[in-house]
C-alpha cells in the first residue's frame, strides 16, 4: 500500500485502480513513467494481464470477460492539471508509434462490441467503461482524473505522444508530452 502514498493527489478512478492493482499484484512492479512540469503531472503505469484479471475478478466479472482483457495491453493513466487554465484531453490527439508503425487505442466501441459478443451483463460493461480514461475531458484547474487505456498486445517498445489543447487561447501551442520506450507489462514467469 505504500505506493499509494505517491498518488494521494489523484482522487478519482486513477486512485482506485492504483489501490486495487497494487494490492492484487504486489509481486509485479512494472515501471512507472512520470512527467511533471508546472502545468501538468502525468503518470503512465503499465499493467500486467494478471493485475487486470485480479482487478476485474474482484468486481465479480465472469471468466470469459476476464479472459478477454488478457488480450489487451493496459496502462493506467493519471493526469493532474496543475495550471490555472483548462487543459483539453482528447485521446484522438494522442499517438502511439513503434519504430515501424502507428498503433491504435482499443476504443470504447471496440469493447462494447467485444462485450456484446460475450453477452456480458450490462452492469459489468458499465463498470468496465468507468475504469477507462475518458476519451475527452476538459480538465479544470487542479483537477485530477485518470483511468485505463488499452491497446492490442505488442512486444516491441513504443512512444506515446500526448497532446493537450489549452482553452484559454486557441492559438496557444498545445501541451505535448512524450513517453518513450513504453512496453506492455508481461506477467511474471511462473
Amino acid at each position: 500500500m505504500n505506493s499509494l502514498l505517491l498518488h494521494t493527489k489523484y482522487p478519482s478512478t486513477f486512485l482506485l485502480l492504483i489501490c486495487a492493482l497494487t494490492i492484487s499484484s504486489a509481486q509485479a512492479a512494472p515501471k512507472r513513467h512520470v512527467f511533471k512540469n508546472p502545468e501538468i503531472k502525468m503518470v503512465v503505469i503499465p499493467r500486467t494481464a494478471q493485475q487486470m484479471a485480479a482487478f476485474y475478478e474482484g468486481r465479480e466479472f465472469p471468466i470469459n470477460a476476464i479472459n478477454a482483457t488478457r488480450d489487451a495491453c493496459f496502462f493506467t493513466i493519471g493526469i493532474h492539471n496543475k495550471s490555472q487554465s483548462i487543459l483539453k484531453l482528447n485521446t484522438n490527439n494522442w499517438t502511439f508509434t513503434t519504430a515501424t508503425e502507428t498503433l491504435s487505442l482499443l476504443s470504447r466501441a471496440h469493447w462494447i462490441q467485444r462485450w456484446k459478443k460475450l453477452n456480458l451483463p450490462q452492469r459489468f460493461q458499465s463498470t468496465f467503461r468507468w475504469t477507462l480514461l475518458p476519451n475527452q475531458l476538459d480538465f479544470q484547474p487542479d483537477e485530477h482524473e485518470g483511468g485505463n487505456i488499452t491497446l492490442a498486445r505488442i512486444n516491441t517498445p513504443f512512444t506515446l505522444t500526448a497532446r493537450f489543447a489549452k482553452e484559454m487561447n486557441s492559438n496557444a501551442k498545445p501541451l505535448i508530452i512524450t513517453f518513450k520506450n513504453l512496453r506492455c507489462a508481461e506477467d511474471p514467469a511462473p
Partner: protein
Amino acid sequence: MKKILILLLFLALPSVSLYAATDAPKGIIKITPRMAPPLSLENMDGNKFTLSTKNRRWAFVHFWASWCGPCRREMPTIQSLIQDMSKDNIDFFIVNTAESEDTIFNFLGAVAPEVNTLLDRDGLTTELWKPRGLPSTYLVDPNGQIQYVVIGGQDWHKPLYQNFLKQLSTAKTQDQEK
C-alpha cells in the same frame, strides 16, 4: 450619474439573491445550468426514490462505487453531511453504480452504515448523467437544473462545504422570486 449607479445596483440585487452561495468552495464548479437527466431508483429495501423537478428543494446527487478509492474516503463525510443537514431544505440521492447488493452492503457496512444508497443496477442511470469519473457529485436546483458539479472527492463534513450547501438550500430560485 448617481441615479444610474443606484439603478444598476438595484438591477444587480436580484441576481445576487438567486443562488446566493456564489463563492463555491474548491472543487465545486458552477456550470451553465442544464436540465438534470431522469433519476428514479430503488434503495436496498426496494423503496423507489425519484428526483423531481417539482419538489422545490435542492438535491445533492452523488455517484459512487466500492472499487473507487476516493469513494471509500469520501463516503463517511457524506454520511456526516446527510446527518448534519437532515433539517435543511436539501435532498440526497446517493447512487451506487452497477454493483451487487452484497458488495454494496459490505462496503457501506464498513465505511458508512447510515447511508441509504440507491441502486443503479445496470449502470444506465449513471451513463445518462455522464459523470467525469467516480466519485462524482451534482448539485441540482429546485427547478431540476444542474447548477454545480463537484470534481473528485471532497471533505463534506467540513464547515466550508456544509455552509455552502446551507446557503444554497435557503436561496430562493427564480421561480420562487416571481
